[in-house]
């Protein structure tokens, strides 16, 4: 069996079995750790065996519903590799950090399940399969917020789900539409991405198909104006779900732009690119400024994530090799940093029982290690040098200047945006006099350190030796830009 | 000819009493007028030589079922305040009648326009107890047995239902 299939289905199958077997939650945690560690090791093997070429690797194809040309087709290339790695690395670490806090079986089963779903989305090369995993990955999040969330969780989880399912529906319509068009033109059904590339669509058709896909991705990312589910959902969701959503699922939305839209609708993507660059830049600034007045820590992080993901969108639609690589790099970099930050926000809540920024403070005095990591990850979001975010931002800005000088200047504001809120937040949370909520703040425990240190080291390594990581993305990015018509707007 | 006169009278009685049945406020009135309908229908059975059915209709329907209804009505001791208010009864009746009108009109229209009942077979034995019995126990033996099971089930069911829970 192919390594990729194991990566996808081991967690899903384990989750399903665990669901039906009545065993103690501690056993479930152990099984969770074993399974995620196996996945992490397998992806490590994948990473080592990965060749620096642009084509798909570790491909696996089986007929599935051959009557309609639906295949089980998976493979990995430079773009998906990053997400797969992130998923594999984050899941066990999250468990290490959270294992004492969560004693519900469903929590862990859902996390396992969602891991498989995310792997599936990242690896599928068949649109039907892609859609299937896209939906599979939603379900556990829905359940997690509903069961383990905070606040007005029923309303919020319904809102989130209706939002995303609406998007998925639009995507399904587009998928079916192009499949039918393909049948009309080539007299056979197929959902294979590489075959559907040959489809010839009129401009109107391609715009419609494009919008269908884009709505789904835009909601997931989210880009302006599809963002209103975001801050509430992140606020109510339990830590594990937030990490999955912000660090992985939102990134999948951006990844799907590349995987689906740039593959299928290359020309249309080019034609509409400037709209999305505009929307992305607007979002970058808009979310950053919105975050300034937030008093709820997780809402602030949510908007910060949205701001950075808008930057990712800009980088993608700039559509040159720097932009693509920069955005893919930012996806990974931001995944680590935001996962760590949300994890630490969860720890903060567990200790101080509040997310209110104003009522925190003085943590640096009582919990220096916590403050160190918190400040480190917050600064890595801001993109200080020697962290991964810096590399990514430099590349995206470079791509933007390559595209158009004005776009370049607007994109370069990214180095200003995150500071607007991050520094004040750091001051208010970590510094000053200890407040009532934080005076008995416990410093990081050993297992939390074990979870955070690898992330911090990874951020540093990606910031100091980016070339080693980027080498894997580059051939794919180059294959998407070189030899294709590149529009320059001056 | 006299058959037709009798038919007309019976038909009018049946329809009128049926209308009274559905429009009467108190169930006792409905039940009494329904007996009239049933008896007229029984008579209509007799008019087409369905003598056995005539008897059965009188005995079972008018005799047993309606008596049961009347018995229940009295047993329950239903007072006026127990009855539903039915403020809009007439309006409902009117609206439903208008709604059902196309249905009836179309069916009647179809029947009038069709060519049924041209070769009526005159069979003197038809409808006698012997004839019905023979048909029942030759062609319809399985449904007959099923009906008996159904009756058994109904018996058990009604006993179970009306048993007081202690």
């Amino acid at each position, binding site marked *: 069996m192919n390594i990729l299939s194991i990566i996808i289905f081991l967690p899903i199958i384990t989750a399903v079995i665990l669901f039906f077997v009545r065993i103690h939650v501690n056993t479930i945690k152990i099984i969770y750790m074993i399974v995620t560690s196996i996945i992490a090791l397998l992806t490590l093997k994948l990473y080592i065996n990965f060749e620096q070429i642009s084509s798909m690797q570790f491909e696996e194809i089986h007929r599935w519903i051959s009557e309609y040309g639906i295949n089980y087709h998976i493979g990995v290339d430079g773009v998906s590799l990053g997400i797969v790695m992130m998923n594999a690395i984050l899941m066990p670490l999250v468990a290490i950090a959270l294992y004492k806090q969560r004693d519900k079986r469903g929590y862990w089963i859902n996390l396992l399940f969602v891991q498989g779903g995310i792997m599936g989305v990242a690896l599928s090369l068949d649109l039907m399969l892609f859609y299937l995993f896209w939906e599979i990955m939603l379900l556990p999040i829905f359940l997690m917020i509903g069961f383990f969330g905070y606040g007005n969780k029923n309303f919020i989880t319904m809102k989130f789900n209706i939002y995303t399912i609406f998007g998925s529906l639009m995507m399904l319509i587009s998928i079916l539409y192009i499949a039918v068009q393909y049948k009309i033109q080539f007299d056979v059904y197929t959902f294979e991405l590489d075959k559907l590339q040959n489809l010839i669509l009129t401009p109107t058709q391609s715009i419609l198909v494009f919008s269908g896909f884009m709505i789904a991705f835009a909601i997931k990312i989210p880009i302006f104006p599809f963002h209103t589910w975001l801050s509430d959902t992140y606020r109510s969701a339990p830590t594990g779900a937030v990490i999955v959503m912000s660090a992985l699922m939102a990134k999948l939305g951006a990844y799907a732009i590349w995987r689906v839209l740039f593959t299928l609708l290359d020309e249309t993507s080019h034609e509409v690119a400037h709209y999305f660059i505009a929307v992305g830049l607007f979002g970058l600034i808009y979310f950053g400024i919105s975050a*300034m007045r937030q008093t709820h820590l997780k809402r602030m992080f949510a908007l910060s994530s949205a701001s950075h993901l808008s930057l990712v969108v800009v980088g993608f639609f700039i559509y040159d090799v720097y932009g693509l*690589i920069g955005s893919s790099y930012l996806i990974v970099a931001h995944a680590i940093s935001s996962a760590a930050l949300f994890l630490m926000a969860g720890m903060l809540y567990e200790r101080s029982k509040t997310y209110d920024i104003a009522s925190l403070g003085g943590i640096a005095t009582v919990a220096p290690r916590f403050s160190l990591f918190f400040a480190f990850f917050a600064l890595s979001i801001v993109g200080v040098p020697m962290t991964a975010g810096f590399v990514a931002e430099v590349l995206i800005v470079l791509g933007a200047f390559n595209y158009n000088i004005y776009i370049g200047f607007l994109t370069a504001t990214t180095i200003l945006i995150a500071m607007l809120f991050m520094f004040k937040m750091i*001051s*208010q949370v*970590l510094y000053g006099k200890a407040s009532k909520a934080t005076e008995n703040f416990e410093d990081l425990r050993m297992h939390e350190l074990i979870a955070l240190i690898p992330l911090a080291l990874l951020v540093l390594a990606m910031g100091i030796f980016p070339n080693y990581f980027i080498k894997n993305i580059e051939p794919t990015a180059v294959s998407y830009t070189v030899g294709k018509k590149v529009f320059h707007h001056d | 000819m006299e058959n037709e006169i009798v038919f007309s009278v019976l038909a009018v009685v049946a329809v009128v009493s049926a209308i009274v049945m559905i429009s009467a406020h108190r169930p006792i009135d409905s039940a009494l007028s329904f007996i009239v309908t049933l008896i007229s229908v029984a008579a209509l059975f007799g008019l087409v030589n369905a003598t056995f059915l005539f008897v059965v209709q009188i005995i079972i329907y008018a005799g047993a079922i309606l008596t049961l209804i009347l018995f229940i009505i009295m047993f329950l001791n239903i007072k006026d305040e127990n009855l539903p208010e039915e403020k809009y009864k007439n309006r409902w009746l009117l609206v439903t009648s208008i709604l059902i009108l196309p249905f009836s009109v179309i069916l009647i229209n179809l029947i009038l326009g069709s060519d049924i009942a041209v070769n009526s077979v005159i069979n003197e034995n038809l409808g006698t107890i012997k004839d019905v019995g023979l048909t029942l126990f030759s062609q319809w033996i399985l449904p007959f047995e099923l009906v008996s099971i159904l009756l058994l089930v109904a018996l058990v069911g009604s006993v179970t239902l009306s048993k007081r829970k202690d």
Partner: protein
Amino acid sequence: MTNNILLNILLLAPLTSALLIFLLNISRRYTKQTLYTLLALSGSGLSAMIALYISYTSYFEQKLFVSNLFTWLNIGDFTIEVTLKADALSSFMLLFVAPVSFLIHIYATGYMDKDKSYGRFFTYFNLFIFFMFLLVLADNPIIMFVGWEGVGLISYLLIGFYFDDIQNTYAGNKAFIVNRVGDFGFLSALMLLFVEIGHGGFSYDAIFFNLSLIDTPMLSLIALLLFVGAMGKSAQLPLFVWLPDAMAGPTPVSALIHAATMVTAGIYMVARFAPLYNIASDVSLFIAYIGGLSALFAAIVATRQYDIKKILAYSTISQLGFMFMALGVGAYSTALFHMFTHAFFKGLLFMGAGAIIVAFGHKQDIRELRGIRRSVPTIFIMMLIGSLTISAIPPLSAFFSKDAIMGILYASDHLDLFFIALLSSLFTVFYMFRMIFVLFFSENTTEPSKNSVKSMNYPMAILTLLSVFAGMLNLPEIFGGNLMMSSWLDLADKHFVFSHANEIFLMSVNTILICFILYYAYKRYAYKDTILKESTTGLVANKFYIDALYQLIIVKPLYALSFFFDRKISHDLIDTSINSMALNYKKLGKLFAFFENGNVRFYALYMLIGLVLGFIYLFLLLKAML
């Protein structure tokens, strides 16, 4: 080969000691302060020695040190190598950065003595040196930018070092944010530069080689944006606001980062890009004027400051303004020379201030520290020498450096700049001696709470010597020198014809004026309590309301905008409309729920309606068929 290793050790020694101190500190194990001291001093001491050796060999043997570490990025044309290169300019920077850092390290061991955050302080301090070396030694602007941002980051951490008071951290935030505004310009400039000529490589040599390929407007834009970066880092108008607030950090920080090294990075950067600025002469002129305005502005503001460190901070802005004036007219090595001397005397002044602050229980207001000459005589002498130096009294070092700047301004036909410089120079004398006279020449009001620490005095003594004699390095011809430094640096200086007679005339006029102002300051402040009577209202005392203005036109609108975006647009406009869409669906559902009321006879009614409709349809169909 050995040379490479030397460079690597130079860079990595502070990093290693920072890491070790960090690990010791974070492990929460009890560590003796001596161990920290040892580690910190060995890191910076080692690099200081190597730096001296490198400058020595670079000066006498014109040796070039290059060390190629690894490839940072390689995408298409975009190849960034992490290469350390100690050419003349870098060696010159090392010449004062490393030793001054080392001296201030020694000083800091005294200043921070018994502080509970001793280890943290030296982690940051060593890390700062690492980033500063990276900035100076980088062979391409991207890596320089890494160092550039890195020093900014450490500066942020050190300004907010005493984080118990949240205001200190706000000062740090301000510093970092304002610096980042500058970095925005810097980064944009680099990206533009890359877009224009990046395909030819991105090391300094390659950039300067291909410079002619860029058309002039773009070149000017790039030059301007680069200067925006310098503006932020070197605290020039209008991005100077962070520097006075940055004095919230411990005094060694102010001495090292906000006087001697980091703030001069802007000067270094402009000098590094000298070939570019030589072409973009309009931008150069702009730089000169910004420098002049900053010099004058800061000098004026400093005359009404009371915090001993803030006076020095404004003085730093002012001196940096001088350097930018020189850079602007194309006299790069002159500017660098002033930077060189400035590092010593400003470091000295800050150390003196720090010593006073420590001695008098963390008082910083000169109104509370009057007449302390007898309590701290050694500090008095050193501070006096420092002040005399900054006032450019011959033959102290700043006399040579500052006078060179004045001379060049005079010779460059920008008489307006010259007068600005002259005026600011006189103001400098005034505010410096206002401080000196108030501090040392009045009746005593306070007693020291702590005796001065030896480890603080020795570095100060060394710096005193250096600020007295550093001028020898670039002695002009009229004093029998041969501008050794300028010829060593070999930058693309513009040369101005300037007769010796004029030069001597200028020097004497300057010196006479300075003495006059000195006398005036003595009359006004010595043994008088004029300082207490100065009004705290008015334009100057309120720093021309610039902070308030920024608050009004940038911070407040941003928060208003944030409110508008978050509440009005996101919440009221988008979210409400989406929620109301959902609510309307709910209402529609209620409408249908009325039909679906669980009442069987209603269901019969619907069946009937369906039946009737079906009948009508069938009937019509039948009719149509017949």
